[in-house]
């Protein structure tokens, strides 16, 4: 039995990159930055480098402190409510900025980003289909 989904957006990604990465705009108050981030379904939240939060004018340690774990260890990050814009789909999101300045990853995770989307992937063609999730 075939299943059909309709999407609002088609976004191309570079299949030669290490991971599936998209351009994302982070908006907070009157500030915004644009960065490239890896989609990571294993990440509970979206997590970004500390310096990007500072560029937005955030006092990092004033955010919601949270401990995160990876295969190789744990770290702390601080959460803020921002707007994430990917492919002109804007979502009200809780994202985190790493406490440690040496943290150099930027990932788009599940809670308040991926869980608010309908997401289709054709990896070999570098295509991602996106729609904002609307409850039935």
């Amino acid at each position, binding site marked *: 039995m075939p299943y059909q989904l309709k999407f609002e957006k088609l976004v191309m990604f570079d299949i030669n990159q290490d991971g599936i990465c998209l351009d994302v705009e982070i908006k907070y108050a009157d500030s915004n930055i644009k960065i490239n981030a890896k989609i990571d379904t294993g990440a509970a*939240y979206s997590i970004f480098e500390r310096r990007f939060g500072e560029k937005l004018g955030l006092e990092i340690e004033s955010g*919601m402190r949270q401990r*995160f774990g990876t295969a190789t260890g744990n770290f702390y990050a601080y959460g803020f409510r921002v707007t994430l814009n990917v492919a002109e789909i804007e979502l*009200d999101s*809780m994202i985190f900025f790493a406490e440690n300045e040496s943290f150099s990853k930027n990932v788009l995770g599940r809670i308040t980003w991926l869980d608010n989307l309908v997401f289709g992937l054709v990896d070999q063609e570098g295509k991602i289909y996106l729609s904002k999730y609307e409850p039935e």
Partner: protein
Amino acid sequence: MALDGDVLVAHAGTLQEVRRQTKGKSNLFIVKVFAEETIISAGL
């Protein structure tokens, strides 16, 4: 938990329960939060 603007309008132990409590309401910010020392997955 679910926020309408900055106002808490629902909270529960699971996102599914919060979504059930807020069904039919639009423009809510629904987010799961953890205790600070709970180790949650960063992926990576």
